[in-house]
């Protein structure tokens, strides 16, 4: 599975690089340079995220998760999960690894979906660090406000769809 995804991803890279090379050497060099630079900039963050989050997940209070976020926790669990997602700091990996750990410790799937959706859409640190510097601030707040109900919608749809 992992290998298949790797092959697929690199096929896409190859195709895009080929198109860029056809359009001109400068474009190809720019693309490769920007891509590799972004990768190098991301590396330390990912390293900290992955290694750190393994410990965060391990340190999570397991006995606390099941009653508050378990399948029986219903809508209240979804609200708690949404709040937790909005307040979770850290890079792209932390939210997913906490979600996965919570799932293993007995959290319900809709609650985990609400958590990772809220974390992906409006984790407060991300709005501050990424979005506000790069986009007009009022559009960022508009987007965050329009996203507020989405974790609840996602959890409700997940409940309708049944277990994965």
């Amino acid at each position: 599975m992992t290998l298949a995804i790797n092959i697929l991803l690199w096929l896409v890279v190859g195709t895009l690089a080929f198109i860029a090379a056809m359009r001109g050497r400068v474009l190809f060099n720019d693309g490769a340079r920007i891509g590799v630079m972004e990768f190098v900039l991301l590396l330390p963050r990912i390293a900290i995220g992955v290694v750190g989050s393994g410990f965060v997940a391990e340190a999570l209070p397991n006995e606390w998760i099941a009653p508050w976020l378990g399948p029986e926790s219903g809508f209240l669990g979804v609200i708690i999960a949404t709040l937790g997602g909005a307040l979770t700091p850290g890079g792209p990996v932390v939210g997913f690894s906490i979600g996965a750990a919570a799932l293993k410790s007995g959290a319900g799937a809709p609650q985990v979906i609400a958590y990772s959706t809220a974390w992906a859409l409006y984790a407060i640190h991300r709005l501050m660090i990424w979005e506000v510097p790069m986009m007009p601030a009022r559009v960022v707040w508009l987007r965050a406000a329009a996203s507020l109900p989405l974790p609840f919608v996602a959890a409700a749809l997940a409940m309708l769809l049944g277990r994965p």
Partner: protein
Amino acid sequence: MVYVRDGRDHFFTILFGDVTLFAEMLPKVLAGCLIGAFVTLLLPRELVARWVGHESGFAGLLIAAFFGFLLPGGPITIYPVAGAFLVMGADAGAVVAFIVSWTLIGYTRALVWELPFFGPHFVIWRIIAALPLPIIAGVLARIAVRAGFEYRGDVK
């Protein structure tokens, strides 16, 4: 904290697991970065702006959501592109749909980050539940704009 609580062996088991996971992620992350860079350079932006401008209506939201799904890359690439769309005349609703779609159903993010943690079953299930969300957010944003929310002053 884990070291103190569970002892040295447990600490190294977790550390080793994390480092292995990290090593498995690297080629995917590099691929994602390269895809993002090339697509950003190759994408005919003017065309996109025309498709998702003020007059684009519901179809514009669908197109924006689809592009959010299609366009790979991290926040480093996506927010500047979204900002550029705004400057070129895309409306706020379309940009909201675009960002939400990229955040929730963008495939590179799911492949690179989510899959190693959750496995394919859960990820596919979550993405299905997320499919209508970009449109909902885009419609809500347009309602807010129509109700008098002013954002153009911030767009340079």
